[in-house]
């Protein structure tokens, strides 16, 4: 019904605009029917140009005020701090340039709106000016490029030898995720989809002894402040492991193993209790409560109260249920992590459980 109303309203707006234009047309002096802009048009349109840039500025301010809570909270990973710094620098730069250039563009459109008696300036070239606005972007961009490349190399330089990284496989399939922990030896057993059979849903090679102590889970638990290296494997189509709170993303490609690495620095608890998240979750629950009221009135179940957890989501179109391919991530202390890991079955146990069945 609301849609119907919306469409009707839009149609009415359309009709009224059309009628307005008719009136405009009728009110015009008959002699000027050339459909070429005259001084009156130039005057009005020039002023509208000025109004438009003001609209743009207001839109920008509105979006920042209204939507600042949309921005992701401070990064929960070590490299994310650099990421955020680079992002802020780029953003500030962008908005300065945006503010100035849009201002000039529309202001000129307003100031120099045409009048019959005016004469335009024949100004075809100025090497100095052009040099200046070539060299400024060159310098600024060179800075950005160099800064960006250093950060990129740091993030992408994945060294298994350095420190004591945790090795975890992220396994993607339509439409869910699994994590495989490398176990005691911290070496993942070989795997290939051709080995998939029965409980061995990830295709771990049963003849590879390294795989026996691997643990396959459907939640991702990470100890805080320890580097983790993800080895990613897909069973069917392209997926992408997107962990926005850790500023981490990597495609998961069938036929190859892709890698990403980061060090989580904030436990789930810390994130939940951060000012940002408390406020955010409160807002979300307010919205959910409102929705629930409607749902209950319509005889449906109410929505659950939301509690924040880190999540991993699929960010590469992968099929009909792409929109709901997620996995919970828990970052916790080393002890908590170890306790949790102990409760998980090893691959070997899984196999023998199947055999005894």
């Amino acid at each position, binding site marked *: 019904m609301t849609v119907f109303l919306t469409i009707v309203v839009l149609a009415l707006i359309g009709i009224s605009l059309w009628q307005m234009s008719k009136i405009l047309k009728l009110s015009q002096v008959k002699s000027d029917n050339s459909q070429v802009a005259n001084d009156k048009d130039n005057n009005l349109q020039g002023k509208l140009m000025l109004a438009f840039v003001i609209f743009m500025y207001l839109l920008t301010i509105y979006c920042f005020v209204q939507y600042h809570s949309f921005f992701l909270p401070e990064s929960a990973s070590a490299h994310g701090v650099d990421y955020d710094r680079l992002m802020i620098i780029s953003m500030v730069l962008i908005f300065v340039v945006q503010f100035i250039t849009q201002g000039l563009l529309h202001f000129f459109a307003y100031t120099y709106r045409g009048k019959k008696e005016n004469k335009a300036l024949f100004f075809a070239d100025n090497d100095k000016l052009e040099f200046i606005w070539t060299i400024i972007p060159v310098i600024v*961009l060179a800075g950005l490029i160099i800064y960006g490349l250093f950060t990129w190399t740091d993030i992408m330089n994945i060294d298994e030898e350095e420190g004591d990284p945790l090795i975890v496989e992220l396994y993607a399939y339509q439409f869910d995720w699994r994590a495989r922990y490398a176990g005691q030896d911290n070496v993942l057993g070989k795997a290939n989809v051709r080995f998939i059979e029965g409980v061995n849903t990830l295709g771990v090679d049963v003849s590879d002894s390294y795989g026996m102590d691997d643990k396959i889970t459907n939640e991702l638990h990470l100890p805080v402040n320890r580097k983790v290296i993800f080895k990613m494997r897909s069973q069917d189509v392209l997926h*992408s492991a997107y962990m926005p709170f850790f500023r981490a993303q990597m495609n998961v490609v069938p036929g190859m193993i892709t890698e990403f690495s980061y060090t989580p620095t904030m436990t789930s608890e810390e994130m939940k209790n951060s000012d940002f998240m408390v406020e955010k979750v409160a807002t979300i629950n307010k919205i959910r409560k409102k929705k629930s009221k409607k749902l209950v009135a319509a005889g449906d179940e109410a929505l659950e109260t939301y509690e924040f957890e880190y999540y991993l989501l699929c960010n590469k179109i992968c*099929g009909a249920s792409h929109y709901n391919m997620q996995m919970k991530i828990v970052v916790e202390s080393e002890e908590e992590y170890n306790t949790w890991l102990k409760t998980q079955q090893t691959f070997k146990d899984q196999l023998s459980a199947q055999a005894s069945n």
Partner: protein
Amino acid sequence: MSAIATVDGHEEDHGHHHKETFITKYIFSQDHKMISKQYLVTGLIMGIIGIAMSILFRLQLAWPDHKFTIFEVLLGKFGTDGVMDPSMYLALVTIHGTIMVFFVLTAGLSGTFSNLLIPLQIGARDMASGFLNMISYWLFFLSSVIMVLSLFAEAGPASAGWTIYPPLSALPQAIGGSGTGMTLWLVSMAIFIASSLLGSLNYVVTVINLRTKGMSMTRMPLTIWAFFVTAIIGIVSFPVLLSAALLLIMDRGFGTSFYLSDIYIAGEVLHNQGGSPVLFEHLFWFLGHPEVYIVLLPALGITSEIIATNSRKPIFGYRAMVASILAIAFLSTIVWGHHMFISGMNPFLGSVFTFTTLLIAIPSAVKSFNYITTLWKGNLQLNPAMLFSIGLVSTFITGGLTGIILGDSTLDINVHDTYFVVAHFHLVMGISALYGLFAGVYHWFPKMYGKMMNKNLGYIHFWVTAVGAYGVFFPMHFIGMAGLPRRYYTNSYFPYFDDLSDTNVLITVFALITAAAQLVFLYNFIVSIFYGKKAVQNPWSSNTMEWTTPVEHIHGNWPGAIPHVYRWPYDYSKTNEDGEYVIAGQDYVSQITPLQDGEEEMHH
């Protein structure tokens, strides 16, 4: 020398006109002016389909729980009870992208205006090969028909995204649309590529060989430069898409493994081994990125021309503009990897592509500054075409700036494939190129149809569109920064995104308003063709050669000999030393006007 000879040859034979039947005049026409109109109308019809699709999925995104009767009416079994099927959502997104990028903004924009303007602005009787030109249009028409037919495939149209990444696009087991729908998509695109190549080759040959006497390369209007360079990048990159598509067809139909390896799906292991989806990504984006500029450069060319004419000023920095077009074209072919920073490609390659990508910002910045300077101290005639051109510069800047974030491999990590990307490319190539298309239609409508479009409807069209387009895409950056992935059927499965739903409603409302404004344009377009005010020969007091032809179309464009060119196209408001216009009382000097006594030619 040969160019001049050809022109002379034409001059002799222009007299004997063939008898034209309805079919040779309106359907299988070889006249570039008619072909350009055919491109435009086909492109607009495809545009209506593409925009209608976006409205459907915007409704779904704004009100995911709502049942819409229109879904049931339009989508049939994919909209049972007014609930959109998730795979249909993906199909709509896919076909919307395909249609808008290729059918509207490549063929509809470049096809229309290259065909119309290249012969008219360089002083040629027609394209180098009218026959190939006709074939090019009809292949485009055929591919459009096939693309539209694919919407009726039993298991749904192609739904792997407009980038059709395999394995999703290769395996019908993975998504229904990858069956017949995808086959038709590939067939349609293969024909489209053939059409595009024939067209581009024709444009290049025409520009090189058929310029009238005096029309040196540096006296060509920037429109022609843009079309010329666009055609070259088309020729360089479209064949690569064809090979990508061919290999995909083989993987789908003949059991090869170019893109497929180690796949377990629907309970069985596929035999494919050794292929890589990353190879497809490379091949696709080798076209895909230049494609962005194939879409955008013609729009920038059109804008350069319109801004100069309506500012009554020469375009600022003509040579820098040409150099920027060339630089953008060159760089556009070596930046494709910025779509693949996190594809599993070697990170070192990522560094190289970041470098080349950010380099593109330099010629783009030069172009923007030159546009702004062209407005400075002008005498702006704010016709609808001029408004759309200024609008284009505005969206080009806004969209281009966020490219600095996405082009940086580091920053791309967290915004890749989010709504931030959607906002960025819609502004910088979608909206900008559409503005270029509209600007071109408003400006050259008198040349195409001999009638004027209603300016007041044009103003309404522009302002509603301008506000609406920013209303749609500006807030979209923010939901992207929140980490909201694109191509999600609904966001209600992540409670974290619940607070974004109001913004999604806002975006959809703006989208509805903007789409409604396009109806004003359509109305104006159709009514003006039949009832518009009859155009004068040179309504915008423009310098370029197309305005020296009669309003009534004739085969061969100029009734007598082809005029010669004596100056560059931007002698607007040029004055003698005494401050008087070069031609007294007239602030423009047509390219075909010889230099006046004591007048100095600009160094161009």
